[in-house]
């Protein structure tokens, strides 16, 4: 197992938002987290790269193992962890730098100075994100000159450039138009060969199109976790049934 979560509980101050989640995720699969707003799926996603640490009032209990080592162990270097667990956010958030420098960022903060290596790596990452043909002639231009969908793929390239083994995606297509969304979904499908991907989504069609497994969260609990096809065609829990048929959420 690539990732194993064991009785993970998260609270903000006195409010408990995750009430003991246990699940394991296989290598090179796409896992979708679905559920209504406020169900804790994004919070859970942010446990895997310890982004919740940035919020002062946030407390995480339980255990998360990645490649058999506890990422909440006191000896863990958070910066190293985040380099191996990349993240793509809901809204495209490129840096106010050139397209090239956005993707080179992760390498530069790692202390890489070899120009040739950086150039190769940037090209490789942008190709992985299926953006190369669109930007190869304007790498020096500001990232803000790109469309929203291109910016999001740039953010994916930025995350890939440091070669993480896991990619976390927090509603990566929710701010994009349908064509850009399709591109991102194709990309997710293709990236599966090299990465373990977890995607949070509100869009159930997106979950069925992209993921191998789906986890349904409700009010801080993991209600059901199964193969995507099974979960959507033959859910075992009434709540899952109600949610995927659109009765609430």
């Amino acid at each position, binding site marked *: 197992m690539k990732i194993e979560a064991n009785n993970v509980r998260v609270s903000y101050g006195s409010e408990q938002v995750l009430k003991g989640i246990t699940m394991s995720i296989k290598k090179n699969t796409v896992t979708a987290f679905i559920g209504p707003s406020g169900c804790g799926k994004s919070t859970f996603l942010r446990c895997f*790269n310890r*982004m919740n640490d*940035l919020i002062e009032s946030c407390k995480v209990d339980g255990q998360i193992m990645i490649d058999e080592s506890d990422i909440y162990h006191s000896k863990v270097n958070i*910066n*190293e*962890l*985040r*380099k191996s667990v*990349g*993240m793509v*956010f809901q*809204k495209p*958030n*490129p*840096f*106010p*730098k050139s397209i090239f420098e956005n993707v080179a*960022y*992760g390498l*530069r*903060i*790692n202390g890489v100075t070899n120009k040739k290596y950086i150039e190769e790596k940037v090209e490789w990452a942008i190709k992985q994100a299926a953006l190369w043909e669109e930007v190869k002639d304007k790498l020096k231009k*500001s990232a*803000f000159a790109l469309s929203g969908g291109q910016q999001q793929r740039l*953010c994916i390239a*930025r*995350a890939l450039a*440091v070669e993480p083994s896991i990619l976390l995606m927090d509603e990566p297509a929710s701010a994009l138009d349908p064509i850009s969304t399709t591109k991102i979904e194709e990309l997710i499908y293709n990236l599966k060969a090299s990465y373990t991907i977890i995607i949070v989504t509100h869009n159930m069609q997106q979950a069925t199109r992209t993921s191998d497994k789906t986890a349904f969260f409700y009010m801080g609990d993991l209600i059901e976790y199964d193969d995507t096809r099974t979960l959507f065609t033959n859910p075992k829990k009434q709540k899952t049934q109600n949610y995927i048929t659109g009765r609430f959420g």
Partner: protein
Amino acid sequence: MRKGEKFIEAFLFGCSALTLLTTVGIILVLSFETIGFFKDVSLIEFLTDTEWTPLFSNKHFGILPLLTGTFLVTAISMVVAVPLGLVIAVYLSEYAPGWFREIVKPVLEILAAIPTVVYGYFALVYVTPWLQELFPDQVGGFNALSPGIVMGIMILPLISSLSEDALYAVPKSLKEASFAMGATKLQTVKQVLIPAAFSGISVSIVLALSRAIGETMIVAIAAGQQPRLTVNPLVPIETATTYIVQVTMGDVPYDSLEYKTIFAVGMTLFIITLVLNNVSFWLKKRYTQAYR
């Protein structure tokens, strides 16, 4: 009812028109007197002569010594205020715990509330003697260094406060993106936050700059009244503002050429600060577009 409404509208219009009229009036007076000055003194002499001695019998009207005096003190104050102000801004916005920030921010802003005359005496009575001890026999009783340092302290809150606001206004998503890449706090500050807040930071610096150039009291008290074309910060100098004070306090006859000099100097200062304000406006406009 409608009549009352109209009256109030007219009253409000009058209030805003008053500020406009005042500004226009000041500019007109400055311009007229300056034109009068340049009937007697050529612009070339004004800009190239290296001596400023309108009150002596051998009169020279070169603005350069006053400008170098002004820029020398301003430069010293910026050397003090810019690095210190930026460090404070970064610390307060990114590192300091909430309670510390709550205490330090108001205290910093108190610095801006201290009357400049107090700063002036602080420079003359404390900083200058201290500098004289530090560099024995080199520091004059009046000099550019002491008021420069003190002025730096005075404009510190301007830079730290505005820069902190600018850093704080950087979208949280950028910070998150950087942390999610495994960047440390320092890397995030240096590579993402400061570049993203660059427009706000540079605006704060330009504003502080024009504040320092126009500052009068501190230099009038501690910098001396000897217009001198020098970059040596240890000897007495005179700034443009100090000269205006000196003449208006003395008994120069109304409408004489000496009298008109202060308008020419005032106009010069006005043009410099006007240009700087436009630069800051332009910087703000140019770099905020990036996020829209």
